[in-house]
């Protein structure tokens, strides 16, 4: 039971992060290989809020997500201002995420040197010195509370899916889709590129941040090595496999990409080779992804409902 729980929890967390990437890559057409960075920022921030300031766990997670979203502007604003697109934007996100990870790697030594500082710039940061030491650098941020369980994750996934659906079907989401299909035409029709992309990036980073928070409170500790480029590329793989302009696709693949390596533990080293191979196959035969352009909808449920309901009506009439 514990093993299945673990898979569901890790799969659910991956789904939430993959939904974030789906909004940015699948719907807005901006490739990102840096979402592990936003997960790290969200995870550490929510851990700090909950552990150091005693904020309740759900609020801590939301604050962590918001913090990750706000941090996304640091990379988003200059990148979108200078109209970075495609690979260039992907590289920028990669740089951001690696920089974040390396900063976190060094929090302990930074904190120690701030604590030891007698004068100069160190004094300015004096209040956060002890906190930085606690973050622990490469050794990790230890003994966090661990309220994340299957119930929490399932609820979070359902909420995340619901709000993602709301976003992509809203006027904001449709503007994002327009940008992904023809940026020039979208701008000529009045879509503010900078604003729309920043909103997509904010929402996307928020999702990653929330996933990071849930992860922190599941493992009960955080280390920067959780958030390497492998994590980012896993998320991108989930979206590319799952399908662009689809939510349900990345949800399914986001889960599978966690379950598969678990089931095939013995092939762990082969995983990346198999990924690469699958990537090529998918790109050749189905460039839009397995469920590309398949919108998640509940039409089937509605049709089913109508069928029952109508039959009732008919029998009342008859």
């Amino acid at each position: 039971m514990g093993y299945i729980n673990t898979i569901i929890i890790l799969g659910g967390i991956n789904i939430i992060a993959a939904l974030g990437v789906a909004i940015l890559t699948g719907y807005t057409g901006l490739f990102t290989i840096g979402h592990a960075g936003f997960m790290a920022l969200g995870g550490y921030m929510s851990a700090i809020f909950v552990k150091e300031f005693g904020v309740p766990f759900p609020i801590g997670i939301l604050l962590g997500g918001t913090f990750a979203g706000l941090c996304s502007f640091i990379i988003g604003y200059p990148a979108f201002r200078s109209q970075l697109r495609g690979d260039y934007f992907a590289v920028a996100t990669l740089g951001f995420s690696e920089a974040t990870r390396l900063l976190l790697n060094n929090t302990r030594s930074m904190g120690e040197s701030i604590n030891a500082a007698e004068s100069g710039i160190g004094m300015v940061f004096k209040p956060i010195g002890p906190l930085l030491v606690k973050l622990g650098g490469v050794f990790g941020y230890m003994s966090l509370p661990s309220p994340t369980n299957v119930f929490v994750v399932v609820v979070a996934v359902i909420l995340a899916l619901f709000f993602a659906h709301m976003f992509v079907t809203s006027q904001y989401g449709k503007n994002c889709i327009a940008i992904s299909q023809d940026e020039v035409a979208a701008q000529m029709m009045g879509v503010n590129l900078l604003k729309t992309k920043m909103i997509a990036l904010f929402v996307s980073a928020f999702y990653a941040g929330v996933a990071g928070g849930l992860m922190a409170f599941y493992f009960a500790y955080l280390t920067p090595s959780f958030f390497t480029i492998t994590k980012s590329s896993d998320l991108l793989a989930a979206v590319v496999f799952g399908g662009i302009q689809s939510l349900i696709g990345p949800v399914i693949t986001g889960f599978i990409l966690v379950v598969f390596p678990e089931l095939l533990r013995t092939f762990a080293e082969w995983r990346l080779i198999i990924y690469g191979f699958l990537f090529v196959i998918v790109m050749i035969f189905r460039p839009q992804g397995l469920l590309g352009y398949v919108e998640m909808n509940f039409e089937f449920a509605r049709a089913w409902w109508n069928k029952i309901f109508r039959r009732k009506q008919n029998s009342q009439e008859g």
Partner: protein
Amino acid sequence: MSEEILNIKNLTVDFGGVRAVNNVSITLEPGEFVGLIGPNGAGKTTIFNLITNAIRPTAGEISFKGKNILGKSPDRICQLGISRTFQNIRLFPQMTAYENVELGFHSEPHYSLAEAFVRTPRARRIEIDTRKKAMELLEIVNLKEHSHARASSLPYGLQRRLEMARAMATNPELLLLDEPAAGMNDDECNDLIKLIREIHTTMKYTMIIIEHHMNVVMDLCRDSRIYVLNLGSLLAMGTPTEIQSNPDVIRAYLGETKND
């Protein structure tokens, strides 16, 4: 004299060493329907690109409703009331016809981001309202039965019309049509003339049309003016009959006649 809606003054643009548009001045009064013709490479589309700021001019002024729009971003210019179609169709290929038109209405969203996530009754009302308006526009261009077809799956002629509907959805005052009749046969051209004329009279847009089909331009601009461009410079301006008998224009289109 009514105040002009668009005023282009001494517009010049260089691409590298090539002067694509040279010292062009055009003025439009509200509600006018003006044609813009010229041989290939005369700089017609470049002028549209300059008006919508897809390209920055080297020199000159453009003002819209008395306000300078030079250097404003394309989306801002669109919000101010200038909309266009493209010479090589630029629809959103994977969106349905209806979604394409709808985008024109909500490119500046009408509710806040928070409302988008929870979809308040107000946001839903706005969406229903937008849907109704988009359907009305599709009806005007006779695309209602194709509203749920993917834009890329529509035949060429219908894509042109859809692009016009999308441009109209941004609620423009000035509509720029770039070769709406390109690649159409005579019957389709006649339908298009009827449609464009209907749009012009009912919507009260000011319009500029670039077109290579002479009968289309001459017919549409019969009560109005035509500007002729050649090699980036204005060659002539006048009513269709004046243009047709202008020796410079004939020379530009047919080449010099040698008199031995």
